[in-house]
């Protein structure tokens, strides 16, 4: 009984945390526009009039892209560091960071 009560309290806390989070979502504008997300969700059969859910999906997607991109960035920097190691006389020749297919595929393989 005690355990149930405790879990009940925990649930309430979680619910409130979730609702707070959803409310805070409305303040944050994800980089992926809502219309685009809504379009593809509608294509897949997801029907929801609630904007916050769409924001949630948009934020999740943005997080996913950011993770993949950061992994690719690490690969890119590692490669540049390897190149520079070989030729120490040259200054850092390429500070320009380019997202290439190689880095992208490596980071996606890990996902």
């Amino acid at each position: 009984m005690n355990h149930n009560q405790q879990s009940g309290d925990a649930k309430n806390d979680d619910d409130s945390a979730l609702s707070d989070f959803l409310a805070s979502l409305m303040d944050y504008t994800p980089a992926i526009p809502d219309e685009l997300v809504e379009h593809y969700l509608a294509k897949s059969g997801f029907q929801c009039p609630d904007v916050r859910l769409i924001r949630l999906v948009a934020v999740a997607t943005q997080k996913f892209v950011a993770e993949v991109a950061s992994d690719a960035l690490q690969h890119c920097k590692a490669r540049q560091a390897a190149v520079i190691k070989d030729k120490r006389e040259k200054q850092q020749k390429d500070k320009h960071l380019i997202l290439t297919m190689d880095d992208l595929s490596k980071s996606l393989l890990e996902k």
Partner: protein
Amino acid sequence: MNDGSLENRKEHEKSQKQSKSSKFRRKSDDFALAIRKVAVAQVCESVGFQSFQHSALETLSDIIVRYIYSIGKTASLNANLAGRAEANVFDVIQGLEELGSGLGFAGSSDVDRCVANSGIVRDIVHYVGHVDDIPFAYDVPRFPVVKEWKGMGSFWEKGEEPLGEHIPSWLPAFPDPETYATRSSAGNEMMSVSNGEKTELARVERKVEQSLLNLQQRFAHNGNEGGSSRDGGDNGRARKASLSNPYLAAPLLFGEKEVEVSPVLLPAKLLNEVALRNHVPENCVVGNHVSLLETFAPAIEAIKSGLCNSDNEQKKVLYNQRPLVHFKIGIGKKSLGMAPDFNSSKKDPGKIASWFGNDNEKDDQKRRAEKILKESRESSQERAQL
């Protein structure tokens, strides 16, 4: 044998890949494609990249579409499993968990965990708290734009009596009899028309044919509107145009994309506007649409007959012009090349006249058709010289 099978397999894989990749990159999706590229680029820029390879950007944008698609699919599946039509926040979270289940997330091993407390949600909260707000670069309108579909009015809506008891009144009404009855009843009309009326009909159709030819020519030349205006009165040639066979009109419509598609669209749009203004019922628009396609047929016949100056016999015209049709497909002046061969048939003069006589918005069409006819005359003369 081995080589052949290898090649087949490669082609098969290629086609498979193409079909897979084109699922989210259809031509109708160009707008979404462009937007998602911008979005992905913005996110990557915030991560730290300064430039991207095109292929990498496209690949990443394809991936996020698949991601969104799979989230939506899983969430709607969960909702349906729970007996709901609309998805819930918990459905979405479960979908996210399923996506991230390959890597694992905090709390996934707990048996009685609350979905709201899942690690995925906490990760997202964490992310939102840390990342700066990056508004999207462009102002995106709601899409896809849904055109208001003006359905055909039902019998009941139009206040018409359905023909016969077997037709319920809530079904859409039949189109105007003029749009479809001319073909079947033209024969009857022909019988009843006297000689004097025949010549008048022929004159009317000639006039309209010329204007239609002009219209065609104008579109074939892509807006070359400086064409010299020629009042073309080749009565002899136009008379041949009056004998047009509807069955031969089909190849023309298929081949002449430049001429067929755009003129049909434009007048339809104009007709729609006019219809909105004048509150013309929808079936009139549809009827005009249909009759427009058919009206080009005699016009093109006139062009074709104009090509052959010397011969008056129909059969010879047929024979001389058939090879022309084949040779001229590739050239810009498609309308000339694809002029079909209209055999004489009894129906057509009456038919054509009835087409032209019944529609309300024929004036601007006539004007445009006249222009095109004039230009076609000019080009036909050039061809004759060549």
